[in-house]
């Protein structure tokens, strides 16, 4: 047998009159999808649509090739990896057949035919394995996070139908004459053998082949026609969505107006409804009404029904207000989303809209009033800001005095008893260091972080401008703060408003000084400790190691890690104004977190945020007496271990 004979007839056994129909239907399906995609693109295009940034393009290629983001959930990641590469192999096989049949090119014979057949068959097998894994997690292991709507599994079933009908089609074709070289089509050859073994004759095989061909053509056309549909369209949008994902720190907000952007629209189309965002959402974990996926799907629905310029009322009307106010802005949903959807910004935009509409919860209104009138969210007279420092003789900056190092105490550090103890510890350390630092005393005002997270952008900018002006009047060179929220605001959000200051969180400050030997400390204590990563420090700004190094330097006991730590840490329940809003759920976020901490067996729970400290302290009430831990801030831990000079 010559190599030219090692091939097969394309569209053999298919009636001639059916071929033009086949091409017609396939092209119609393609064309309808293409028209919808182009129309959508034109509707939503903007001046910044082109992902021209080379780094972003490379990032998308890496994302698609290695699936590193999807593999964070091992089972689902492997399932997608198999499906993706299986699909690629089958698509390549179909393209080869198309080129051979419809163009003057002639290459589909001999060794190429054999190896291509093997490649496509193995690809198809992997494809089916991936799809079966998806179906397994939906119908057998029944993962909670998966959306239980009828249409969600249609993509999987349709792809499975395409793959199985393709293999049966191949098997029935081979079964007619069973050529030995077709053994390279491993799956098709096995099916053909089984057909022959079960007594299928040539005529029957040909009949089956014709029927299966029609069935395969129909489901394939259907697949292409359905591509612009929700879920199907993730195959087109997910790469683009990932390429346009937020690259700035997770905790950073921009002053962008709450108007749907084309990125928002594209990202809602890219949602695969996988539910990873729901799985990591603290509000969802305690039974509060927020489900981040529902926010994305709700906006998608609004856009689908009302068009891209959907009114804000249409968007908000789809959610109960408690849904919008449940978010703790921890950013876990953003971080875990496999297609890079910015749910965090969507929720803040919804809040901004609610504030503009004037429909905010009473607790939010009180916080806004406090921040506007008293310059702090605790609704305390700002003149009481220095009460915590009575008798400490702190160096309050004089008007216009140039400041080398400004210790920014923050509102929690000034007004909350738990926060005040952190401030005192910081003062102890600073005094021990004997370095010239200043505080602003009663001139310090809220950075505006809680107001901004609750959607009061105007109030935030008002406070921000005042603070920036004040700091500029002192020519502040460096800001030191023990509050990750203040840290994040100074580091990421004030620069956009003209206030670029060097800022350090106290964990970084302490780590730097301990490492350089300028802050001598004595290791002590033998009890095990664990560290709770504040969202605005760890996930939000990527600082997870400095606090751990500080703990290791001063704590004699073993440092144990909670199940969720570092960037994958779990929220304490305070962020995004949730400390004030307190939407009711079945449990409390802080209770879940302290239970995780208690499971490590630690006796001391260390954190680096005064708000976290309040919440974790509050969560202790939910523990048994013998599980309760001491909650300490890093500064308190260090202040206890200072080596006398």
């Amino acid at each position, binding site marked *: 047998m010559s190599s030219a004979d090692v091939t097969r007839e394309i569209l053999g056994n298919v009636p001639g009159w059916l071929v033009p129909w086949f091409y017609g239907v396939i092209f119609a399906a393609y064309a309808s999808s293409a028209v919808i995609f182009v129309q959508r693109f034109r*509707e*939503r*295009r*903007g*001046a*910044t*649509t082109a992902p021209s940034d080379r780094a972003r393009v490379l990032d998308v290629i890496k994302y698609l090739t290695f699936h590193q983001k999807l593999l964070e959930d091992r089972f689902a990641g492997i399932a997608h990896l198999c499906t993706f590469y299986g699909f690629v192999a089958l698509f390549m096989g179909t393209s080869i057949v198309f080129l051979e049949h419809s163009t003057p090119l002639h290459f589909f014979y001999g060794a190429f035919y054999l190896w291509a057949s093997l490649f496509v068959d193995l690809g198809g097998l992997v494809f089916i394995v991936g799809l079966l894994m998806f179906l397994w997690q939906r119908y057998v292991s029944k993962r909670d996070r998966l959306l239980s709507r009828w249409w969600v599994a249609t993509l999987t079933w349709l792809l499975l139908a395409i793959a199985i009908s393709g293999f049966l089609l191949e098997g029935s074709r081979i079964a007619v004459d069973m050529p030995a070289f077709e053994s390279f089509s491993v799956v098709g050859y096995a099916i053909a053998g089984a057909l022959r073994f079960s007594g299928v004759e040539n005529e029957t095989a040909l009949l089956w082949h014709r029927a299966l061909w029609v069935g395969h053509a129909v489901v394939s056309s259907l697949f292409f026609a359905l591509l612009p549909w929700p879920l199907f369209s993730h195959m087109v949008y997910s790469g683009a969505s990932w390429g346009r994902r937020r690259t700035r720190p997770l905790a950073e907000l*921009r002053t962008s*107006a709450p*108007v749907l*952007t084309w*990125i928002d*629209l594209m990202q809602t189309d890219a949602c695969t409804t996988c539910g990873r965002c729901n799985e990591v959402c603290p509000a969802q974990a305690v039974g509060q009404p927020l489900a981040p996926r529902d926010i994305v799907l709700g906006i998608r629905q609004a856009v689908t029904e009302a*068009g891209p*310029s959907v*009114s*804000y009322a249409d968007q908000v009307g789809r959610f109960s207000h408690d849904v919008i106010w449940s978010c703790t802005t921890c950013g876990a949903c953003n971080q875990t989303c496999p297609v890079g959807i910015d749910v965090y910004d969507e929720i803040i935009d919804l809040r901004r*809209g609610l504030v*503009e509409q*004037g*429909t*905010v919860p*009473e*607790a939010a*209104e*009180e916080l*806004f*009033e406090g921040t*506007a*009138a008293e310059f702090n969210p*605790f*609704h*305390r007279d*700002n003149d009481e800001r220095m*009460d915590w*420092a009575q008798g400490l003789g702190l160096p*309050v900056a*004089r*008007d216009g005095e140039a400041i080398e190092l400004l210790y920014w105490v923050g509102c929690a550090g000034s*007004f*909350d*008893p738990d*926060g005040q103890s952190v401030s005192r510890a910081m003062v102890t350390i600073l005094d021990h260091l004997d370095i010239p630092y200043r505080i602003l*005393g*009663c*001139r310090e005002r809220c950075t505006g972080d809680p107001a901004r997270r609750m959607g*009061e*952008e*105007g109030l935030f*900018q*008002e406070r921000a*401008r005042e603070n920036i002006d004040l700091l500029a009047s002192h020519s502040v060179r460096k800001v030191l703060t023990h509050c990750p929220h203040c840290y994040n605001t100074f580091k990421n959000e004030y620069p956009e408003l003209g206030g670029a200051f060097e800022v350090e969180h106290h964990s970084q400050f302490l780590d730097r000084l301990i490492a350089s030997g300028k802050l001598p400390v004595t290791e002590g204590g033998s009890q095990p400790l664990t560290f709770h990563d504040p969202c605005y420090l760890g996930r939000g700004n990527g600082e997870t190691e400095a606090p751990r190094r500080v703990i290791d330097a001063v704590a004699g006991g073993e440092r144990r890690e909670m199940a969720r730590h570092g960037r994958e840490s779990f929220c304490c329940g*305070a962020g995004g104004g949730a400390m*004030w*809003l*307190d939407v009711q759920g079945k449990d409390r976020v802080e209770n879940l977190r302290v239970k995780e901490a208690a499971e490590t067996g630690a006796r001391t729970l260390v954190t680096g945020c005064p*708000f976290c400290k*309040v*919440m974790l302290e*509050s969560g202790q009430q939910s523990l048994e007496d013998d599980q309760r831990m001491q909650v300490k801030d890093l500064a308190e831990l260090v202040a206890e271990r200072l080596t006398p000079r």
Partner: protein
Amino acid sequence: MKQEILVILGTDGRSQLSKSDRGALGLALSELKGSIVACTRAGDQDAARYAAAAGVEQFLEPRGLEDCAFDIALVGRGACSDARDAGDLLPAMLAERRGAALAYEVVDLRRRADGLEVVRDLGHGARDILLVQGPAVLVIADSVRRTGYVSRRRVLAAAPKGSESPDEASQIDWQRTQPRVRLSGHAAKVQGSATNRLNDLFGIAITGSRGKESNDSQLVTGSPETCARHLLRYLAHHDFIAPDRIPMPETSHRLEPPSEAVLAPARPRARPRRGPRRATDSDQGIARRPLPLKKTIESRVPQPVSGRRIARRGPYRLNERPEADAH
């Protein structure tokens, strides 16, 4: 029949409106259907701006109160705080002049077919419900069930008729976003910056230079007279000239002279001073006190207050209604 609703409100020494004043406006806007007129002290720009931001379009000078034929007047505490404006006698004087019912400590009201249902707070958890028919003067309590929040962005952007344009520097900037959706239909009507598009989206009509123009074309135009008047006001504001040197603008209608006791004549705008106090300054209205810290601070039991603890976690207070939190 369309009713005339009068809302009288005023800021405190720190340019802040009390809950009562905001509640008066909120109740008027949400519960009462009619033509709403806001009355603020002369020169009380912050109160006027708040009212304009909340959606009030008609304003009345205090001297006009004498002839105002209102059906319902809602009075905030801030409006009664200035002794020059008759102080806390103001509601009583208004009620007497109009022959209206007078109720204090009003926390809620609802329109009914046969009149107005008014809920008063009697203290210690007790309330009574009155049915008011005919003209009424209602003084709103601080524990009012408030409806509606007016964002700072709206307040800073608003400029009531006849007042100064909002200060450009104090305005909120939305990042200039590209028009990322096709400018068809709604969006096409509002070209320009994100701020303008957002204003349009929320139906905020802004007068002054930050109106519908693009951010790039904010030109201030004015006649020589206007410019001169602004200059004089600027000079008076900074104490370069006496306020009474500012000539009053000619108006098409003649204002009646103020009555002897009801309200004081208009005063130039006075803002709370932020610098160190002078010996002649009063204690009121100064947000900040001189530094450094007091050397001897009397011992004070710290209030056990934290963010968590001040949050509303307990049962509803007696003066709150569960449906108030429905959202």
